[in-house]
């Protein structure tokens, strides 16, 4: 696989900010997890008042980097410099004390508390005397924090009564309370802060962030490259755990960023397109006007044996809910779902398993595997019935089957009795796949199947997906990247606001372009 050569952008003339020591810097930071080299010799710096963008595909190391900056993880080697001097963040609260604020994608406000209580949650001590909180003082202080982000909200309101954009502002206000105690300049991490916001709300958020640059520096992580370009001064591009580019935002563009993030030219080979065989005539699943109130409606398609059907769509498009319905977690409430010539309603995953569905969830470690059970027990978990004779599990046959799958799928494990906990992400995913192949699933639902896997593991998963579809297994795929959806699928459906807006074939050599699909997504 070829990696695009890094072209460092020419440095602009030093600004006054640049003359200062960086507010925060990582120097030669390295971090490994079992089976994954998550960060490889990463060095970045954030200057006072600067907004630094951080982009990369899933698994590029962004979240690990953010977790190191926020004190959740500690680096294996390398240093953290705060205002030019070496420091350590032993925990998230330690990082906060030192002036690192966080605004997360999953909003952290407790909706049953008031805005003021949320802002000072855990820091009420300054307002309390003999254990009694002076609420008037707390709410007065909260009002001052809210003024900083220019939001017109009563601190006595409950957080649940605010819209998402206002909540995001409250989060920002909460992060800004740190400046009263932190020794130096604040650095605020914005982790996908726009993912739940509308465009107008995003504009307000960005305006606030710009206005706050006198008070703090920002690190902005987002999948939306145009937004990163819009808000950031500088952008770091990450790929496979390393920083591959440091660009001045004003001189960069979306195509260039994307190219650096993906960093490969032989896409067709990456997704094993030469192995993509035409699918069969046989229909294994048919949807007629399928509907789930508030999530999706009028969904029609036929899934054929050996077909990979990719569903593209943004958050809120209904594709996640549709996937959950087909896996048995959320029964549809209208239309028809036809399997084996019969109309069915899947009220539990057990019923989905009965019609031959195997679900490979995005939360591999929660829904995919029982981490504290051995590899063998996980592989046979989906189909203990056929292993049971006279009420007893045939453990010898179980062992044989498990060993067979470990060999067939090249699962790298010390043995079949090893707990799945101790396997790398890619091998864990192969165990999940083995479970469904062992249960003879005819329809696999792949819900972000390569999330958190490194490149090599991804390629192995792609190869396995090609191999099982060649044997007639049908696949429904939702993925983190459009590229993966296009690269793997025979057919691509695009969803927006709960309906299918576009469907297109994706034979090798005639794959649709990302831009064509994006137009139907947003």
């Amino acid at each position, binding site marked *: 696989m070829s990696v695009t050569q890094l072209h460092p952008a020419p440095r602009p003339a030093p600004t006054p900010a640049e003359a200062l020591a960086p507010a925060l810097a990582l120097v030669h930071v390295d971090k490994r*997890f*079992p089976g994954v080299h998550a960060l490889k010799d990463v060095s970045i710096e954030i200057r006072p008042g600067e907004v630094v963008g951080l982009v990369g595909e899933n698994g590029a190391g962004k979240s690990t980097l953010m977790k190191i900056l926020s004190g959740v993880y500690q680096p294996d080697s390398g240093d953290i410099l705060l205002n030019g001097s070496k420091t350590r963040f032993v925990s998230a609260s330690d990082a906060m004390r030192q002036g690192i604020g966080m605004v997360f994608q999953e909003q952290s406000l407790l909706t049953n508390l008031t805005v003021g209580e949320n802002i000072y949650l855990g820091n009420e001590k300054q307002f309390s005397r003999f254990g009694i909180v002076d609420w008037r003082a707390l709410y007065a202080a909260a009002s001052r924090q809210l003024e900083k982000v220019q939001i017109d909200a009563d601190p006595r309101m409950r957080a649940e009564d605010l819209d998402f954009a206002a909540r995001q502002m409250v989060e920002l206000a909460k992060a800004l309370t740190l400046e009263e105690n932190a020794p130096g300049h604040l650095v605020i991490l914005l982790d996908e802060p726009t993912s739940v916001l509308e465009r107008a709300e995003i504009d307000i958020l960005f305006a606030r962030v710009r206005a706050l640059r006198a008070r703090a520096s920002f690190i902005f992580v987002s999948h939306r490259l145009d937004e990163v370009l819009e808000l950031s001064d500088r952008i770091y591009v990450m790929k496979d755990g390393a920083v591959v580019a440091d660009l001045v935002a004003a001189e960069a563009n979306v195509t260039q960023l994307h190219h650096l993030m993906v960093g490969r030219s032989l896409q067709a080979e990456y997704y094993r397109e030469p192995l993509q065989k035409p699918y069969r005539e046989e229909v294994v699943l048919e949807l007629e006007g399928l509907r789930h109130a508030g999530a999706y409606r009028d969904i029609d398609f036929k899934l054929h044996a050996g077909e990979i059907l990719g569903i593209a769509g943004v958050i809120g498009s209904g594709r996640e809910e549709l996937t959950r319905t087909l*896996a048995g*977690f959320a029964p549809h409430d209208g239309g028809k779902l036809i399997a084996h010539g019969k109309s069915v309603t899947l009220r*539990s*995953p*057990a019923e*989905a*398993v*009965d019609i031959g569905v195997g*679900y490979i*969830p995005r*939360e591999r470690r*929660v*829904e*995919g*595997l*029982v*981490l*504290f*059970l051995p590899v063998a*027990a996980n592989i046979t*978990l*989906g189909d*203990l*019935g056929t292993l*049971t004779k006279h*009420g*007893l*599990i045939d*453990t010898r046959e179980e062992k044989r089957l498990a060993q067979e799958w470990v060999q067939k799928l090249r699962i790298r494990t010390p043995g079949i009795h090893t*707990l799945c*906990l*101790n396997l790398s992400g890619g091998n864990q995913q192969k165990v999940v796949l083995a*479970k469904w192949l062992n*249960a003879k699933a005819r329809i696999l639902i792949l819900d972000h199947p390569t999330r958190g896997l490194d490149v090599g593991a991804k390629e192995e998963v792609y190869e396995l997906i090609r191999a099982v579809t060649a044997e007639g297994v049908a696949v429904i795929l939702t993925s983190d990247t459009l590229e993966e959806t296009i690269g793997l699928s025979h057919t691509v459906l695009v969803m927006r606001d709960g309906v299918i807006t576009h469907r297109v074939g994706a034979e090798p050599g005639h794959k649709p372009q990302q831009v064509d699909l994006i137009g139907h997504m947003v």
Partner: protein
Amino acid sequence: MNSIIETIRTDGLRQWLPLATLILLVILVGAFQPAFLEVNTLLQLASDTAVLFILATGVTFVIMLGGIDLSIQSMASLSSVAVALTLSRFGYGAFVFAFALGAVAGLLSGIAHVRLRIPSFIATLAMGGVLYSAALVTSRERSITLGDSDRAYLGWITGTVFGIPNVVVIALIVLAIAHVLQSRTRFGRYSAAIGAGEPAAYASGVKVDRQKIIAFVLSGACAALAGIVLVGRLASGSPTLASELLLPSIAAVVVGGTAITGGVGSIWRTLVGALIISVVRIGMTFLGVNIFAQNIVFGVVLVAAVAITIDRSKIPIVK
């Protein structure tokens, strides 16, 4: 991440800790009281442990899949009352009746837990109250001593086989059945999977609700059996016959090394745990500890065992 792997490694040693404790305790008590190590005393110890072990076995099934059954002592007492009241009329059928009563009570607890989505400790706490009251009302709040004609039905509990007390044989049969259930059946495997990772078990098509109900039925049935054995040993039934046995039973499960959070454990560990509790009890009797003060020790032992067997630092939230 590395620390998790280290935990697993140290768990290798940790799982032998209960057995080592048991051996140490036996040696200690034996050193102070050599008579303790004689065959007859040990058989007496085994007999005394049987009821506790049977109760603990039932609750092990529930704890394995992450729940708890707090109704077992009330169930055992009610079962003793049921046997005492019906023995003269039903004969051996009285035992079947009491056993079935336990299974039904367990079924109801299980259904309340699963269908109504009530936490198991609430469902079984309530069930325990119901069963206790039922025992009080049906027995008219008194102990029912069996007459000579009724005692004739108790031979299968009080007798011996080749010198081994029948209660020990009964406990061994329970052990064998429980072992097979746990290690060789789908129910056992699914229980471990549910206890260790319920979302994954559910997503894999396991009928989680059904397994939970089965566990509560087994727990209720075991409690009823424990009550039956108590009737045999004491020749009477009473609404408070099994009081003071809930704490030692749960202590036995946890002291043996089964995780209170579910997923990790086995019936063998419960056996070791029950023996530890018995030896501690006998040791205390030798030391002259007031019999009513013994639950102080079991309470402390329970907390200490949970603290030692689970690395608390890995669990951010404890409810």
